[in-house]
């Protein structure tokens, strides 16, 4: 019976071969091709000139991931201690912004962070800018926030924070309450219960949160373009430029994409390794 049913996958396997595997093979072929079609490693050598972009991408994505973790973990933990009704509403509230396109959410920050934007207006009103000028002897009319790396990180954190909260929350909420009771009965105080029971058991959620924030952050191009003003180029922008932008060079673009794919594979491998170990620990 089973073998007959398994034939149902044949159309999808063909589809995957055409539109999942073949495109990746194309990326690999292009990454190792010169414009005249011959084999070359020049595309990878050329990446050296963009080392700045690589380090900037990693730096900003790591900072954004860390901030998301520092906000997301406590939030997930605090939420899990509230009543079920509250939790339900809170979950909807966290997911709701994700349903709006990230371009719209990023766009709203543009008008908040502008030189004469809402935040600067607020700082002006409460006298923060005057205070800063007095303290440091400067003569600022506004704080420059748009087109900075800080703005790009803010955009990443704002857009991807729910991706950190959700997996951590779903792991914490499933923790067996009797484990916590046992720890308390055996004399652990609140801090120790957290450090020795809740934290290690919620690690799979943390790892998948980190991946879910880091991968889109390191590969974004719209956020950096909108909030970084095109001055803070990231890996995603670099790829986009090679395909649709002025610097048309699909060979270099494919090579950078290949590197990006390897980054994702490494993230997944790390996650799977720790994730499985943790699952076993839970089962034991």
């Amino acid at each position, binding site marked *: 019976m089973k073998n007959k049913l398994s034939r149902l*996958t044949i159309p999808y396997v063909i589809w995957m071969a055409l539109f999942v595997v073949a495109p990746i093979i194309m990326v690999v072929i292009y990454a190792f091709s010169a414009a005249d079609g011959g084999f070359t490693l020049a595309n990878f050598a050329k990446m050296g000139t963009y080392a700045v972009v690589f380090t900037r991408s990693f730096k900003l994505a790591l900072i954004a991931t860390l901030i998301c973790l520092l906000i997301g973990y406590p939030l997930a933990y605090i939420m899990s201690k509230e009543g079920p009704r509250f939790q*339900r509403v809170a979950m909807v509230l966290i997911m709701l912004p994700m349903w709006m*396109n990230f371009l719209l959410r990023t766009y709203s920050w543009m008008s*908040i962070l502008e030189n004469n934007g809402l935040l600067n207006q607020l700082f002006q009103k409460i006298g923060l800018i005057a205070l800063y000028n007095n303290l440091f002897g400067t003569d600022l009319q506004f704080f420059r926030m748009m087109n900075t790396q800080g703005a790009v990180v803010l955009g990443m954190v704002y857009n991807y924070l729910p991706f950190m909260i959700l997996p951590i929350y779903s792991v914490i909420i499933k923790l067996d309450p009797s484990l916590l009771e046992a720890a308390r009965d055996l004399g652990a105080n609140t801090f120790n219960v957290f450090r020795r029971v809740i934290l290690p058991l919620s690690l799979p959620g943390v790892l998948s949160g980190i991946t879910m924030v880091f991968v889109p952050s390191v590969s974004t191009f719209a956020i950096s373009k909108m909030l970084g003003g095109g001055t803070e180029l990231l890996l995603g922008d670099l790829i986009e430029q090679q395909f649709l932008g002025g610097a048309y060079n*699909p060979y270099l673009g494919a090579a950078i994409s290949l590197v990006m794919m390897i980054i994702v594979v490494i993230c997944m491998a790390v996650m799977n390794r720790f994730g499985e170990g943790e699952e076993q620990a839970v089962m034991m």
Partner: protein
Amino acid sequence: MNKNNSFLNRLFMVLVFVFLYAPIFLLIIFSFNAGNSNTVWKGFSLDWYQKLLRDRLIIQSVYTTLLVSLLSTAIATVAGTFAAIGFYAMRRKVREPLMTVNNIPMMNADIVTGVSLCLLFVAFFNGWGTFAAWFNSLGLFRLPTRLTMGFGTLLIAHITFNIPYVILSVGPKLRQMDKNLVDAAMDLGCTWMQAFWKVILPEIKPGIVSGALTAFTMSIDDFVISYFTAGSSASTLAMTIYGMTKKRVTPEINAISTLLFVTVLILLAIVNIREARQERLREKRLV
């Protein structure tokens, strides 16, 4: 669990929610602004909504977005359900490598998926151009020699990244199903088709529905993959918005945001109220 949060904990929670919602509410407020600014309030008006409804580019892209999302969701749901059943019936050794390939579009960075499909389409169109030129020289009938990316490629890309989500949510339902059910149905004289319609389908229906919903959301929300696969002839709403933010700031975007936000809010409210009601009904039945 310990059910008391201190005042500081609650304050932290409130601050995070303010952080998440303040920008959205600002967008909504300034969509009713009379002036052409997102920072200075010039009085109430509905001008931007009127402008929005008259903007042909935006109406056209909303239409494209809905069409591509609905079509790709429908196709991906059917294809994904069959594929999931097939995977379920497979031996583990064959299934696992295939599932790994299936997971690639979900795991990979969007930009890599988009770029790789873009490369494939361009390479295929080049090959097709050569083939069509040769075929036309035979003089049978004419094939178009120049194909470009457009709605067709956009649809293929959306189907490709939607199917894995359907499989992901149908798969577990299949595994929860009692294996003997299908055999029993067949023993009692069901044909394959009947067993599928009367036994398997009702069992996995919740998985199919949630898979379709996820796929639809992914499609509506996608920008990056569409951006690389739609070419210049088709434009989704997200692509149009991106174009608008690049050129000049226009409060029309605020009006779009407000309309989208209200739609999502209503949909989520309906879903949640229904779920809550069903839960209550279930509890009553148990009592």
